[in-house]
């Protein structure tokens, strides 16, 4: 997967994680709402269908998320678990974390404090490589 920009509003940058082809870190920059969420979801589903089983979402550049965006993450979680994989989020800005929290979704998602913690979680839960991220 190459870096993509969705509707001039969300950039998704994949980063290799520890040489494990089944694990990827996706860095999001922009916002995620009803406007761009379907296309975002479609791109990530392609990735999952292509064999990715573990996804680390780096949300440090995500300024806003709507319920539709959170819905996309619940969908990824379901797809990955069907493949015995998992996902973890980290770097949430205060506002984005508040939306997750206000909607009661923090209990459904693993939210790590940084990339190392995210990798550790995946290693424990999903058997992903934990060799450290690149970039």
């Amino acid at each position: 997967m190459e870096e993509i920009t969705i509707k001039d509003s969300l950039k998704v940058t994949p980063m290799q994680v520890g040489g494990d082809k089944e694990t990827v870190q996706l860095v999001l920059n922009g916002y995620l709402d009803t406007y761009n969420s379907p296309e975002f979801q479609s791109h990530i589903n392609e990735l999952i269908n292509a064999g990715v089983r573990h996804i680390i979402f780096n949300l440090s550049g995500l300024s806003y998320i709507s319920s539709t965006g959170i819905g996309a993450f619940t969908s990824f979680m379901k797809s990955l678990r069907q493949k015995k994989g998992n996902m973890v989020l980290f770097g949430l800005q205060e506002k984005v974390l508040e939306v997750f929290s206000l909607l009661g979704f923090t209990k459904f998602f693993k939210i790590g404090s940084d990339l190392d913690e995210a990798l550790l979680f995946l290693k424990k839960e999903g058997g992903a490589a934990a060799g450290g991220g690149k970039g």
Partner: protein
Amino acid sequence: MKHRRITLDSDLKNLSKVREFIAAAASDAGASPSEITKIEISCDEWSANIIEHSLEGKEKKTFSVECSAAEGRFIVMYEHEGERFNPIEQEVIDVDDHFSESKERGLGIYIMREMMDEIHYEYIEGRINRLTIVKYLEENG
């Protein structure tokens, strides 16, 4: 603060413009960052509802948003012409069930009810949907 009003095309790309408009108005009205987030996500849900459902498949239409504040209350009034859609009549969802069934939509009305203090709906002249949503602001917000 003075009343502020914008009118936009019913296009999902305008969601971010509405959020910016409302967040700026709420900030000027003295809302705290947390209150602004609640107002912003609630209004975003209604904006998306209007654009996706009420105006679906119709010729290009518009909707308007008006913000005002009075006596510690921040008020957002939406108006659009379209089929009658009263969010207050919608079923209340359970977030746990919503997640376990991996539904991706349907949270919007729940959010508005949870985050805002008042919701009023009117259908005027058999053509205009008017939704007024109110947030009570904390004194030091």
